């Protein structure tokens, strides 16, 4: 399929001295804890299949140790898989020679790190230009291009500072600018904002989203923070013990969590901020009210509807009326339990 940018197929990673001979056991279904206890090997990734769509933000989330970093490092082959395949734009990453792989990392996929990974001995401008200097682009052009990216992440004026002179949020802006400067179409972000304070983190999320509106990169974004996942992700995959236990849009996961682990994950979120009116859309001729777009979140819709004093709203998409939504349905949607549509599940 042409709208798939990165395709991860049956990916397994086992850490340990004799990984190759453990793969059979894992494929037969041995669990992570059994593998560790009985054979002293760590199951990093367990049959991961993810298709990342072009120009979308694919979020991968999971608790600490679930294998998120391991997974994202497979995409640019910082870690070699035990078995499986990774196809980017039709090319198999795993069959690349060292030179081809370097080329792939230079021009196709760039990375932003949780701990920033900036070069402490280089100024901001030279850090941003780092990827370009590796490509062998001449200094003058590299600096000109870097300046542009420094501006777009809002760091103008700090070009000649060293990373240690900047706050964490600013350092990560440098990290982001460095990754964007190579013009790679894939951006790998491993908990890029996790080390930042909540407010700064939210700022950075906004920076990323507004850049993405212009740039349309394919972004693979790792996080353990559900709010971040919901805010950024077009698609979300949830990892546990190295296996993907659910993937899909935020709405799908919230409305139909696959199991208790996912239910637990999403129990504290504010659903009114995530669910869109389209998820509770009906066709009820009795409803009269203001017109709202189908991608408006319920929180905003509730406000509009209650201000107008009506019993619901008309949903429009691309200028056409596509359905209706009632006040009660919206309230039910954000109030009801997340496990299934009946209201009999109790929060734990």
């Amino acid at each position: 399929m042409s709208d798939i940018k990165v395709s991860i197929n049956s990916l397994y990673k086992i850490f340990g001295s004799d990984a190759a001979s453990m793969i059979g056991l894992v494929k037969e279904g041995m669990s992570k804890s059994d593998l560790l206890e009985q054979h002293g090997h760590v199951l990093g990734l367990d049959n991961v299949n993810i298709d990342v769509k072009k120009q979308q933000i694919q979020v991968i989330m999971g608790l600490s140790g679930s294998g998120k970093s391991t997974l994202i490092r497979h995409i640019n082959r910082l870690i070699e898989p035990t078995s499986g395949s990774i196809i980017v734009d039709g090319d198999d990453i795993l069959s690349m020679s060292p030179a081809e792989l370097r080329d792939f990392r230079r021009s196709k996929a760039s990375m932003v790190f949780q701990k920033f990974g900036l070069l402490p001995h280089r100024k901001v401008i030279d850090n941003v230009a780092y990827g370009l200097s590796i490509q062998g682009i001449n200094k003058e052009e590299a600096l000109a291009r870097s300046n542009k990216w420094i501006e777009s992440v809002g760091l103008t004026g700090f070009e000649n500072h060293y990373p240690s002179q900047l706050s964490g949020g600013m350092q990560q802006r440098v990290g982001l600018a460095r990754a964007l400067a190579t013009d790679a179409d894939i951006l790998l972000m491993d908990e890029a904002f996790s080390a930042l304070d909540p407010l700064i983190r939210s700022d950075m999320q906004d920076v990323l989203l507004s850049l993405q509106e212009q740039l349309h990169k394919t972004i693979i974004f790792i996080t353990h923070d559900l709010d971040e996942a919901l805010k950024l992700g077009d698609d979300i995959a949830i990892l546990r013990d190295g296996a993907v236990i659910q993937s899909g849009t935020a709405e799908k996961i919230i409305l139909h969590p696959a199991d208790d682990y996912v239910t637990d994950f999403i129990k504290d979120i504010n659903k009114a901020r995530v669910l869109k009116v389209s998820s509770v859309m009906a066709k009820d001729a009795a409803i009269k009210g203001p017109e709202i777009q189908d991608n408006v979140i319920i929180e905003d819709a509730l406000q509009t509807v209650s201000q107008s004093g009506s019993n619901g709203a008309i949903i429009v998409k691309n200028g056409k009326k596509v359905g209706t939504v009632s006040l009660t349905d919206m309230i039910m949607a954000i109030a009801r339990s997340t496990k299934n549509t009946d209201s009999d599940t109790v929060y734990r």
Partner: protein
Amino acid sequence: MGRTDLRDFKKAIDESFRDFTRNYGEAIENFFDPLLYFLIWLEKLFLNSPWPIVMASIALLVYFGSKSIKLTIGALFAFLLIGYLDMWEDTMATLAIISVATIVCISVGIPIGILMARSNRTQTVVTPILDIMQTIPSFVYLIPVVMLLGIGKVPGLLAVCIYAIPPIVRLTNLGIRLVDKDVMEASEAFGASYKQKLLDVQIPLALPNIFAGVNQTIMMALSMVVIASMIGVKGLGVPVLRAISNQYLALGVMNGLAIVVLAILFDRVSQSFGKRLQAHRESGHNV
């Protein structure tokens, strides 16, 4: 081993080494010729230049190395005193051999350190060799060096280098291995080649350690000056040796102090030079 066996065993070793010397001694000597010429040239340069010029260049070097007026004035004063006390020629000879030894140690030691950092196997092989070089009494390796190359400047230089090279090798290796893993990973993720990682990331970030190694190497070279003079190296060690055998206290102390002065100068200048290379560390908080 029986007594006769043991004697034969030692004899066999001695003889085979002597054969080796006979066959290859000259080739090895020729190999070191460029070094010898360089050392002689440097010595002559130091000795034949009028002393005010030497003094001025020392002051300049000290100033550019340390950016400290105080240290520069101190150095000038020390060298004036050395001249006044008639140790100028020996000091220049020592300066020459220390400079050459340092250059040799750096240009051999840093590459070895880099290779060690690159592979654990190299490290396990080289580390015990360095241990031996540092702990074995210097007189022991003087024997084969002298057998091979006789008495003179080159064997002296070699002896100094054998003794002084371990710190620079060790600290280069250590410095590279201590480079932040996250920074290395970032470099790798952007597609840096081995050479790019080495030159743009590892060496710059290992510089403080490498400089500490250079500094220690110079110190150790200086401490070898007396022993080296036993096998024919000119310099401050010669009068010290004479002082020992004739019990000239004042002569020994004066020349010894001159060595100390050189050591302090080298130490301060190379340390503050190393610090200044690390501009990014001075300001702000470290990560």
